């Protein structure tokens, strides 16, 4: 079987403004990000002939109608929550490698701050609805079996995993805090980061209010009105674009089993990424030691730790020490979330992680540039632990 290795590349990345209170619809934010990515690639909107729509907010056809794409040759949507953008890289790579499309747009974003019902719901699309292209398979499980006990949000679902990990392996709060602090430190070097000029210490971390044990405030990601977009092109078409291409060397998706119920899993620490990681590393033909930096989906601090173990950077139960001692800092052996991540830059469903990885590999990151970065990875995490992994190289 032919491999997707290096058959596709990221040729353009872009974003909207990151705010709390955009005053715009989610589609508008994503269109602004899309145009920025198309411009970054040096393409014209009508060059786009494939669109992988976001899991919510708008469909591929909404984008095509706004961008003037008359011949949309490939349209699909990945329904893996926050893992969708990274897994969309796989779908886009397939489409361009097979010649179905030449340039695939992957937009994603939302009014993550102002669409929260407590803040009035934010600006709505023309129809007044937030399009939900497919029913959410998790809704049945939550409605029938979690809701009566008040377990309805990710801060609670993932907390079950974190509590068990802490109990079984002695994982301390200070290790989760180390993730929050290193990301906040990196955000100080990122002018777009929402948490710039708001440094965080371990004392601040431990003194913060509880959200849902074992998560305190700084274990939890931001809520942001923001969108990002990525353009994927066939490797042989990379010459069409203005910037240095970033190759998708290895990419894979994975689903925990069963995907629609966390308690039922034979081993709760086997997640989607556990299945995806060996495939992506094998496709790329690289080893863990070859990775120069990693952008890991960080809706919660512990979720980063779970993924580090699932990818095999350390053994089960050892992540508590792995994440301490400076390894994850810029200048360290394996810098983590160099832009500040969902915890300190913005919550853009991890699409901002792909944008950052591409810019790191183009060596455009200024003060936060990982020196001589050649190979980086981006993970996605969504729903009840769906996962994706992309290994990118310059």
């Amino acid at each position, binding site marked *: 079987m032919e491999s997707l290795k290096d058959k596709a590349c990221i040729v353009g990345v872009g974003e909207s403004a990151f705010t709390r209170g955009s005053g715009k619809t989610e589609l508008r934010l994503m269109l602004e990000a899309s145009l920025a990515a198309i411009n970054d690639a040096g393409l014209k909107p009508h060059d786009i002939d494939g669109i992988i729509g976001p899991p919510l907010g708008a469909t591929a056809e909404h984008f095509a109608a706004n961008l003037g794409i008359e011949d949309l040759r490939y349209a699909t949507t990945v329904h893996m929550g926050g893992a969708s953008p990274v897994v969309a890289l796989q779908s886009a790579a397939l489409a361009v490698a097979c010649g179905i499309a030449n340039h695939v747009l992957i937009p994603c974003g939302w009014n993550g701050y102002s669409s929260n019902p407590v803040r009035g719901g934010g600006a709505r699309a023309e129809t007044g609805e937030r399009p939900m292209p497919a029913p959410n398979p998790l809704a049945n499980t939550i*409605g029938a*079996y*979690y809701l009566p*006990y008040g377990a309805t949000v990710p801060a*609670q679902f993932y907390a*079950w995993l974190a*509590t068990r990990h802490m109990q079984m392996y002695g994982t301390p709060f200070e290790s989760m805090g180390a993730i929050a602090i290193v990301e906040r430190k990196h955000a100080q070097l990122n002018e777009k980061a929402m948490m710039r000029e708001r440094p965080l210490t371990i004392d601040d971390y431990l003194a913060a209010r509880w*959200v*849902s044990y*074992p998560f305190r405030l700084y274990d939890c990601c931001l809520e942001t009105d923001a969108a990002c977009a990525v353009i994927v092109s066939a490797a042989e078409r990379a010459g069409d674009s203005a910037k240095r291409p970033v190759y998708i060397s290895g990419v894979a998706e994975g689903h925990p089993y069963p995907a629609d119920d966390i308690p039922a899993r034979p081993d709760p620490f086997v997640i989607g990424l556990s299945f995806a990681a060996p495939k992506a590393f094998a496709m790329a033909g690289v080893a863990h030691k070859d990775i120069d930096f990693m952008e890991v989906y960080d809706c919660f601090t512990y979720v980063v730790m779970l993924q580090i173990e699932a990818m095999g950077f350390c053994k089960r139960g050892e992540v508590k020490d792995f994440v301490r001692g400076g390894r994850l800092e810029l200048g360290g052996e394996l810098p983590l979330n160099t832009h500040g991540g969902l915890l300190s830059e913005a919550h853009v469903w991890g699409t901002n992680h792909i944008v950052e990885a591409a810019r790191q590999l183009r060596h455009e990151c200024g003060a936060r540039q990982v020196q001589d970065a050649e190979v980086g990875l981006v993970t996605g995490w969504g729903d009840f632990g769906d996962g994706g992994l992309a290994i990118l190289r310059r």
Partner: protein
Amino acid sequence: MAESRSYKLPLPRTGGMSADFYRFCRQHELRFQRCTECGTWRHIPRDMCAKCGSFKWEWARSSGKGKLFSWTTATQPMMPQFADQVPYSPIIVELDEGVRLVTWLTGVKPDELKLGMPVEVAFDDVTPEVSLPKFRRAA
């Protein structure tokens, strides 16, 4: 299921097999699907046995005894109805039969929760129509 006037918390949203699950709960019977071909227990309910592929099952009665598998403690309400409940702990119990479910442990404070703690089912008749399986500390 109809909302009761005095019970303010959300009731299970059920249909099909989940309605069956709660119908047994109303009779204070904790029952889960068990494959009648290979004997494998399962929860949440599904059409097929993932182990042997059979469509045949029975609603087999659980001992109601199990151990605490994990927990979280909500200190802020994620839904307004739970404002009076905080702090409360949605827990996962592993039944002796091997299936696990989300529930509450009554009579135990959040800081007394301990991995592996033995627990047993104790139904709570929250409305005339609905009984929720909750758990209490077991000997």
